[in-house]
């Protein structure tokens, strides 16, 4: 796992380049400067304003769609009987899935000692927080009266003795998602503290010094601080790890514990978790590729990182495809009329286009990732990630809509047509997500300065050392 290999070994095949994790020619000083300059240089690229404007427009669409929804009610959505679950659950699951890369990168890869997580973890964690916020909006808004949501969703000992149904995965969702948001946020903030201290030192304006000073919570970088910090970080990583699996498993139970063909299938939990990681990495690449170019962060997010992320996408994508395969196989093997019909209906029914586009975007296109040359081709990776973003949304559409619209009795079949307000709310959350990400890039380091410096120390002084952070803290 050496990471300072600069060029190909001469005696062997010339294409065997091992890319470094930090580009050569950097020092502790240059690392801090390059990352904090994104914020402190005062030069905001024009493209930032362009996208910020667009994102702001969509935040307004979100506001409008939510306002109309609250004034009139969920009747403005396309949901009907039998399709009682529409865009709200599709988008909820899509966003929650996107949030999974952050925890995987920050927690699981930390425990697995994968050094390539450093320098993409902050970015992915930030994405997680905002993606979970977007996800959370849907269950809250679908209640119609979100100010009463806590009363409906949270179990508390009321005098009426009314409790939520504890056997329902929907209430487990409430616990799982709120735990996930809390732990992710704590992890993120703890990680940010040393970086805020670095910004405090480097800020030139009085306002900047005071603000970052407060956010740094008195961090002085003493050995004792680092000692506590490292313990806290490791413990939080341990706590977050089960959350990577639990949240999306419970989301899959929302469907799987029912008796609806297409929902009730035992492969759902692992297949949903793999899909979540797949979607999460696709979003990290979708946003990370332009970001590293605009702010010239290629020194820290190198081709090595991008190659590793592409490999994770390939592996999780194949597992998702395995899930589709198992469903199709059991549609035949079960010899169950309804299971068989569900598969045929997905492939050839009125929503055939959604199933086959899903296969195209989520299974076929990502097979390009097998090739080393594609994994080294930035534009190709951007479009493959985009394809996966679309594919993963279609997956949830297929699961929710095609399973519900034709169940057991032909007399109760129906069709689902999302309305302009469905689309407005969905597009609005994408705008909100982008808006928050763009704001964050402007005010806090999008790459962890402390960890990249730690990695730099480690690679420079050999592999035996655990963390060089202490000696470079000053």
């Amino acid at each position, binding site marked *: 796992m050496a990471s300072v290999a600069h060029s190909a070994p001469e005696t*062997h095949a010339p294409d065997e380049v091992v890319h470094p994790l930090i580009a050569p020619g950097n020092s502790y000083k240059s690392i801090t400067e390059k990352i904090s300059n994104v914020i402190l240089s005062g030069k905001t690229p024009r493209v930032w304003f362009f996208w910020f404007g667009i994102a702001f427009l969509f935040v307004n669409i979100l506001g409008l769609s939510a306002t109309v929804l609250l004034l009139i009610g969920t009747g403005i959505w396309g949901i009907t009987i039998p399709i009682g679950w529409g865009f709200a659950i599709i988008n909820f699951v899509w966003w929650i899935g996107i949030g999974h890369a952050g925890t995987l990168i920050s927690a699981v890869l930390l425990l697995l000692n994968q050094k390539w997580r450093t320098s993409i973890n902050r970015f992915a964690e930030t994405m997680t927080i905002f993606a979970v916020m977007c996800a959370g909006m849907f269950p809250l808004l679908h209640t119609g009266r979100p100010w009463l949501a806590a009363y409906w969703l949270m179990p508390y000992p009321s005098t009426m003795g009314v409790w939520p149904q504890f056997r329902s995965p929907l209430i487990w969702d409430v616990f799982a998602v709120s735990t996930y948001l809390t732990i992710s946020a704590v992890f993120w903030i703890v990680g940010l503290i040393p970086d805020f201290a670095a910004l405090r030192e480097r800020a030139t304006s009085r306002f900047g010094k005071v603000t970052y000073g407060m956010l740094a919570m008195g961090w002085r970088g003493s050995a004792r601080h680092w000692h506590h910090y490292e313990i806290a970080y490791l413990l939080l990583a341990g706590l977050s790890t089960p959350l990577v699996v639990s949240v999306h498993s419970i989301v899959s139970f929302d469907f799987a514990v029912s008796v609806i063909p297409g929902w009730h299938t035992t492969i759902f939990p692992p297949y949903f978790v793999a899909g979540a990681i797949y979607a999460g990495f696709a979003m990290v690449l979708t946003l990370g590729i332009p970001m590293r170019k605009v702010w010239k962060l290629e020194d820290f997010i190198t081709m090595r990182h991008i190659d590793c992320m592409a490999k994770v996408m390939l592996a999780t994508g194949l597992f998702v495809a395995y899930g589709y395969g198992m*469903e199709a196989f059991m549609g035949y*093997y079960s010899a169950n009329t309804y299971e068989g019909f569900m598969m045929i209906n997905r492939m050839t029914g009125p929503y055939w286009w959604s199933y086959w586009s899903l296969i195209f975007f989520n299974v076929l296109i990502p097979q390009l990732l097998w090739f080393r040359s594609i994994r080294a081709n930035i534009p190709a990776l951007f479009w493959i990630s985009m394809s996966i973003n679309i594919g993963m949304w279609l997956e949830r559409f297929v699961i929710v809509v095609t399973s519900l619209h034709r169940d057991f009795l032909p007399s109760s079949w129906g069709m689902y047509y999302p309305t302009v307000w469905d689309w407005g709310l969905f597009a609005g959350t994408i705008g909100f997500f982008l808006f928050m990400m763009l704001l964050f890039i402007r005010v806090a380091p999008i790459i962890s300065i402390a960890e990249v410096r730690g990695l730099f120390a480690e690679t420079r002084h050999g592999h035996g050392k655990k963390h060089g952070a202490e000696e470079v803290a000053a």
Partner: protein
Amino acid sequence: MNNADSNRALLEGAQKRWLTIGVAGALLCAAGGFMNAEQFFRSYLFGFMFWFNLTLGCLAGVMTHNLTGGDWGIATRRQLEAGMRVLPLMALLFLPILFGVPKIYEWANPEHVAHSAILQQKAGYLNQSFFGIRAFVYFSIWLTLANLLYKWSGELERNPSLAIVRRMENLSGPGILIFFLTSTLAAFDWVMSLEPHWYSTIYGLLFIVGQGLAMLAFMIAVTTWLSNRGALSEAVGTKNFHDLGKLMHGFVVLWTYGSFSQFLIIWSANLPEETIWYAHRIAGGWKLIAIGLAVFHFLVPFFLLLIRNNKMKSNILVKIAGLILFMRFVDLYWFISPAFNTNGLGLHWLDLAAPVGIGGLWLATFYGQLRKRSLAPLPDPFAEAEQAMERA
């Protein structure tokens, strides 16, 4: 050279011991077969499946290590390859199952099929000739993969080069994919179809996780045995066992996750066609086994493996690995035997003789294969190139 001689003697001794046990077990099984053919085939399937899963786990382990690298595999690579080399024996040992199909599988019994509309519908897939063809295809694929990988790692040993490493990587990527599919279908064919009306989409994955877990536990056991006898290089130490222990911990959790997910989903929906599988597995004495699985396949190893010291000391870790190997037997028994004994525990002496007999032959072959090459870690041209660059 003295070390190589003593290693050879050590492995030869082990091979002879296990061969004796294997032959004795095989004779017992043959005697049992004459007394009770039906029971023989049932027990034989159980014994076969355990050792088969271990073999396939070794094949998957080699391919995974080709793709991901890692210290766990450097210490165990030779043992994994020897395990994978038992595949021809397993192909041979599959033949009795092929002959026993009408005695083992309900769907191969025309009388049963005549009374079941569902089985008639499935007859296109579940019939004797297609079953045989599929098994032939699976084994051909696995044998090809194993032979190529073994051949190339021999080349790598003689003449280390990056090109060979790349070639192994390029085969292992698609190889893992093909392994996932074939292993899943084999689990459906050979075990799930014992109850031909029942189906579960996570079933293949449960088998694959079981294969991984058995492989890791066996690797810990055999690596400890070899290193305690000074047969391995001094490079194999605490770090390797710690990594293997962590991986085994992960797989224990994965096994629990998969098993519990399947249970929860089936329990919640409460459909008779699905719950029957669990109904058979908690009937009578089976209930104790089910509880035993939760306690000794999950709780006990989970908490023991949380403790760092237990993972780093090979002599403690090997005991946990032993427990897990034993529980893999129990889990598989709980998967297979209730299909025949739906009302309660039906332990037969052949259920013990078959896995011991097949296991003896398996281990004898394994040690024979292990003898063929050095026990030193495979050369790693990538790591060497990187180290050279670092020194520069």
